[in-house]
């Protein structure tokens, strides 16, 4: 069948212009005006994540406590500032950054920013909150054993990222969480909250000149300077397989494969290769392992964007009696399924389509703009994304196929 050439290039998201401002302390503001029902979303990224974290789980616990009370606002007031307008506020940590995200109505933005300033500059980190959140997180760490996929994720991280901060999820370890005291939290926040590490993106139905003065006022309160991340690269050297026991009705197979770094020319072509292999109902993994072999209901691959130690991750959940064949066939397909020109075109369209559909909400738009910036790819990557995917050639994908996906690290969780 002939492929329909996508017109998606001509579609921008509302055609809105993005503007960038760098404050004197290094904080980068990225602003995008939209038209709509008077709502606004923002994300404050702090480049940090679990890099340099000695007690595992410290950054995540710190993030958890940020919205639980400040010198001026208690937990209820922080939440109600956003929830009263139908919005919300959250904080979380990924491997490479901490984020505080929020949504509110435009008329509530000024008030929201005052609270955010307080969250950033005068968090309480109250001992009783610390104890409660620690207990909750310890339980959450233990609860990861309840689900096969989570157990597999943890085991695969230990196997494939050994010796780097990625070895453990940001939620941390029981040992790490138990050893954290209030001083650790205070120090961690002081260390990472540095102007040059902070990226703020705001997307909403506002006028930039009306919000800029309060944004400056709030984010100039962040101390200047830089928290240096020293990402440790873990190379994949030889294939490995690990088995983990867990009672249940399914086996989970999760594998990591060698992949190109995200900060290079190969990033977009590899995104296309990943989509070809494991995104959607037309992907290789879906067609072969689910439709032809009937191994599974769910099978897919992803190519997570991380600062270092790039991997392609592939997943299949199958019945225990099919696990060996499913493992063998999945590894085989990822490593050596042939790549056809038409598949590459289809995969490109999927990547562009997913990109557009993932940016329907202001919160997601703000998130992606800030994400590319905080990851060192620059927020313009978001604007160029569709073009750069479309520019990927069959030859590029083929040569990546030759170059990467040679080594696997696999985990099988089985009853």
């Amino acid at each position, binding site marked *: 069948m002939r492929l329909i050439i996508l017109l998606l290039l001509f579609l921008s998201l509302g055609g809105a212009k993005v503007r960038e401002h760098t404050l004197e302390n290094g904080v980068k503001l990225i602003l995008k005006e939209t038209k709509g029902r008077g709502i606004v979303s923002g994300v404050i990224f702090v480049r940090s994540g679990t890099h340099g974290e000695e007690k595992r789980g410290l950054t995540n616990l710190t993030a958890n406590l940020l919205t639980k009370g400040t010198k001026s606002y208690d937990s209820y007031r922080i939440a109600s500032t956003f929830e009263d*307008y139908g919005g919300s506020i959250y904080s979380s940590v990924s491997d490479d950054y901490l984020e505080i995200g929020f949504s509110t109505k435009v008329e509530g933005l000024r008030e929201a920013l005052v609270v955010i300033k307080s969250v950033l500059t005068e968090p309480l980190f109250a001992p009783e909150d610390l104890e409660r959140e620690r207990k909750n997180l310890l339980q959450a760490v233990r*609860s990861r054993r309840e*689900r096969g996929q989570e157990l597999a994720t943890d085991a695969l991280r230990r196997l494939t990222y050994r010796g780097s901060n990625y070895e453990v999820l940001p939620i941390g370890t029981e040992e790490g969480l138990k050893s954290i005291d209030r001083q650790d939290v205070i120090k961690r926040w002081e260390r990472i909250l540095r102007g040059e590490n902070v990226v703020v993106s705001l997307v909403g139905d506002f006028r930039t000149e009306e919000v800029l003065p309060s944004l400056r006022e709030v984010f100039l309160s962040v101390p200047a300077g830089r928290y240096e991340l020293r990402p440790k690269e873990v190379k994949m050297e030889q294939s490995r397989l690990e088995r983990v026991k867990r009672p249940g009705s399914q086996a989970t197979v999760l594998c990591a494969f060698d992949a190109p770094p995200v900060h290079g020319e190969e990033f977009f072509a590899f995104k296309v290769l990943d989509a070809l292999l494991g995104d959607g109902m037309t992907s290789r993994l879906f067609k072969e392992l689910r439709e032809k072999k*009937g191994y599974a209901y769910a099978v897919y691959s992803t190519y997570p964007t991380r600062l270092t130690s790039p991997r392609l991750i592939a997943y299949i959940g199958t019945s225990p009696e099919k696990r060996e064949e499913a493992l063998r066939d999945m590894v085989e397909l990822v490593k050596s399924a042939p790549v056809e020109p038409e598949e590459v075109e289809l995969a490109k369209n999927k990547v562009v389509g997913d990109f557009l559909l993932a940016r*329907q909400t202001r919160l997601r738009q703000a998130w992606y703009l800030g994400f590319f910036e905080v990851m060192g790819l620059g927020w313009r990557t978001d604007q160029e994304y569709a073009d750069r995917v479309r520019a990927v050639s069959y030859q590029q994908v083929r040569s990546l196929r030759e170059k990467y996906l040679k080594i696997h690290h696999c985990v099988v969780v089985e009853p």
Partner: protein
Amino acid sequence: MVTLATAGELKTYKLPNGAKLVVNRREDTEAVALHVWFRVGSVYEDYHQKGMAHFLEHMLFNGSEKYPYGQMDYIVESLGGNLNAGTSKEYTFYHVTIARPYWRQALEVLYQLTQKPLLLPEMVEKEKPIVIEELRRGKDNPTTLLWEEFEKLFYKVSPYRDPIIGYEETIQKFTREELLKFYHSFYQPKNMFLVVVGQVEPEEVYREVMQTFGREVGKSLPRVDIPPEPEALENRSKTIRDRRVEKAYWLIGWRAPAIGTKEYYALALLDQILGSGRTSLFYRELREKGLVYGVSTGDLGRPRDNLFFISATLEENRLKEVKEKTFQLLSSLKETLTEEELQKAKSRLINSEAFSLERVEREAFYIGYSLAVVGTLDYYRYFESNVKSVRREDVLRVLDSYVLNRPYAELFMVPER
């Protein structure tokens, strides 16, 4: 053509064959959501059909008259869109989200998918292991098991007690003939609701729909008796032990007003006050006081035998204390609920819609649900004014007549040590 009503950009059409079409034209987005809903789900099945509505949903992806197996996925994905479907206890829906220029191709795919499926016997056999893998995948997750067991405890007669996906024994026995019969009964214009949300011209959509779905013949629908759940006379309590879980799960539920009834809006506010967000009563008094790891409340949005629940995760040795505290918070609401708190709950509930409707597929879902499950678009259309008209005494009356001193069912899932 009969135009039923217009509310802002909302256009409603009734097709001559009985199908309904709702188009919501929106200027603020490049994405278009196209939904096709059928009023059929697992409660429409008889005992040996358990799992058939869901199985049929899978089967529809296995080839149509115009598009052979695999081609419908190919068309949608090659246009950068998403094609998917879902089956619940009351409805089944098929949906595409796609960039604006391609809504026509998506509509054609949805037409072929839902109205011209081949349902080939070899495909029935191909699909069985996939669906059974899906079933086992569900069972592998303790939370799925918790809910399955809970509904089995809560509903003694109603088919709500059976899981949507059915049972391995029933699925293995499905044949093409049975599937065809089920298909022809429910997948026809009189049972069909089409929803399109995005930057589209309603009249153009209507014309396009008339060329596709409009050509099908509407037949009378089979009478399906869904046995109502008799009033429970006493509390039911059950504990299950599971080797996989690390903490205790508590799930408690009461019979609740059906979605779309006047009392339902008071229930929605009660739910907002008790368990929605970090400003809610249970979050403050249970989660922030360190009694539970997590707590939530909700209802299942059912048009009959609806259920309101409270769910919490906690340490096993805290179960008694947490239950007592929960009941105490519920019964003291009569004294503690202020007018101001109610007003805040209203604005939270109403305003949060503005955020959830940013995604076209969310709005299409909301409209589809109103038509196919609630049975009237008024649910979607007048939600805001219905919520606004709720008074403090309405909330307290719902609390009193459905929750306090009413029989409940509760399930504990605790670690097996």
